């Protein structure tokens, strides 16, 4: 029996669980037309157990078709699980960051902002107070009053992204949408998302960019063929993800490798069949090698990028350390000067004290002389 969306009341506190999936599975039908109604379908996700806490940032990794988007859509309430239980804390909203979703080409950017907010469940009065910030963030300027149909893809994505960031949501799910716009806007978007990470929102990030995931996420989940393969710290999950990706190189095309001289002489038909099989195997092997070479070159390029990034980081750290050393020697010089000044101050005090003592002695002599005169 499937139960979804049970609600409970819990006191709010940081690290409280706000989403819990227990053995959830979603079956998607196959085929076309009415055949979809009675097709067995396939399990897009199965036996997924997952907990999300307030303020947590989780990376969701897996190759294409592994079930990441299906999982996010299930959490967002778009799809109903066919088995298992999904619990979301009462009053908690979960949305997928979907820039551009719901845009109507005939309406202006400004009108679309209100429309899309309405689709998210926010009335125009809720959005009106943020409208200027949204337009500023999107950097589309006066184009906001033109029909969205004339926008470029980048402009649509920027406006949609800006709007999605300003719509409050307790659980934000980012499904490979951080690549919108040009490099400057991407940095801006990343900074805005990073700001969200420091708040009490929970974020689930899906991306193929390992650097983004490492910077943004504390923990990761690796999903493969609809099942959770691994959960844990980012580094461990990333390593597992890379291992899994390298196994994809081993394609199985259904033919065994044979030598080109693998020819039998039973009959002319058998000879031709075996020769064709041998040729198909050679071609399969060639494809495998090219694919493996492509993966290897990609990994090499990835390592090179990582190495360059590390070098830059080390250079920056070295500069910082040098500056710190300079500052430290400056401070020690100051202390030496202070020492000298203090010593001078002490000398001056001693001199002053001596002068006072001399004055006191003189006064004493004067007093003694007076006394002597009186006695006389």
């Amino acid at each position, binding site marked *: 029996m499937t139960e*979804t969306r049970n609600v409970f009341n819990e006191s709010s506190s940081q690290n409280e669980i706000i989403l819990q999936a227990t053995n959830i599975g*979603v*079956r*998607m*039908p196959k085929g*076309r*037309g*009415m055949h*979809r*109604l009675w097709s067995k379908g396939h399990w897009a996700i199965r036996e997924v157990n997952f907990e999300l806490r307030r303020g947590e940032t989780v990376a969701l990794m897996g190759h294409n078709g592994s079930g990441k988007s299906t999982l996010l*859509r299930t959490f*967002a*309430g*778009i*799809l*109903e699980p066919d088995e298992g239980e999904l619990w979301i804390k009462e009053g908690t909203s979960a*949305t*997928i960051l*979907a820039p551009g*979703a*719901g845009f*109507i080409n*005939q*309406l202006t950017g400004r*009108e679309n902002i209100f*429309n899309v907010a*309405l*689709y*998210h*469940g926010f*009335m*125009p009065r809720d959005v009106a107070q943020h409208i200027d910030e949204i337009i500023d963030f999107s950097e589309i300027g006066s184009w906001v009053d033109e029909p969205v149909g004339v926008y470029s893809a980048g402009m649509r994505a920027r406006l949609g992204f800006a709007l999605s960031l300003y719509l409050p949501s307790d659980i934000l799910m980012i499904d490979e949408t951080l690549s919108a716009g040009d490099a400057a806007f991407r940095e801006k978007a990343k900074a805005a998302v990073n700001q969200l990470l420091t708040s009490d929102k929970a974020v689930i990030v899906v991306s193929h960019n390992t650097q983004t995931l490492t910077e943004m996420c504390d923990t990761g989940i690796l999903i493969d063929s609809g099942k959770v393969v691994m959960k844990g710290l980012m580094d461990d999950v990333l390593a597992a993800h890379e291992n899994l990706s390298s196994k994809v190189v081993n394609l199985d095309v259904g033919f065994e490798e044979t030598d080109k001289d693998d020819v039998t002489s039973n009959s002319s038909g058998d000879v031709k069949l075996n020769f064709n099989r041998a040729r198909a195997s050679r071609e399969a092997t060639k494809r495998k090698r090219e694919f493996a070479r492509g993966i290897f070159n990609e990994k090499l390029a990835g390592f090179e990028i990582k190495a360059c990034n590390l070098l830059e980081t080390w250079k920056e750290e070295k500069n910082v350390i040098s500056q710190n050393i300079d500052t430290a020697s400056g401070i020690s010089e100051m202390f030496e000067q202070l020492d000298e000044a203090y010593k001078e101050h002490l000398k001056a005090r001693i001199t002053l004290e001596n002068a006072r003592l001399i004055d006191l002695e003189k006064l004493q002599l004067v007093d003694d002389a007076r006394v002597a005169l009186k006695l006389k």
Partner: protein
Amino acid sequence: MRKTNQASTISQVITALEYICRLTVVQIRQSVKNYTFGIVWWLADPVINTVILYLVTVVVMGRRTQDTAVFLLVGLLMFRFLQTAISGACTSIIPAIGLSNRLYIPKHAFVIRDVLAEMLKLFIGILLLFMGISLFDIGHFSILQTLIVTFVAVLFTLASASIVALVTAIIPDFRLIVGYTFRALFFVSGTFFSLERVPEEWKNLFLMNPFALLMHELRIAMIYPDSLNLNLLGNLILISLAMGVIGYFWLVRLDRSLPKYVL
């Protein structure tokens, strides 16, 4: 505790109504902006169809009475509302599935939105007709009867639209069946002929057709000084409520399953 629950329930209902109304406004704005003379086509549509029917019935077939044009216009107004709203429900859910795959939006909101948008057109048409009837002193307009008939028509349309939208989302071919049905209904529902022309033994059966009943009753409300057939309207209300309960129950029940099945 109960008062708080009641207050929150009322608040939720008000919020839901506001949400539906705003969605309807978006839908109207979009449909108007699709065309250069957007809103003009709204108002011109029943008039153009009336002119065509007038030419056919009066000029070609030679049937003419004092209020032929108003008779045709009232009938067409109601028929166009029923046809556009119910046929439109065939395309309420499927085009919205793309959006629904990225944002959660209740599917029944799209169905209600489309019907309400057509309802606004009906109201504007009735208002203009009322002004014309008053100006030219044709017929006998009753506001209360008009409101009753309009209410029943909207209720029936909402109920039918829920079932049509759901079935078409799962079986797209149903849209064609709906189209053919309306084509037949146009000719057998009294759009361009009155109840008097129907043989006596067929009248009861004729009025069991909801489209024929609604057109006839709207003509009584706006043109003729007769009383409404409250029995038949009451039966239609009950049938509509039953259909509506079934339709919206399944729309809500399958709300999160439809995105899996609809392509």
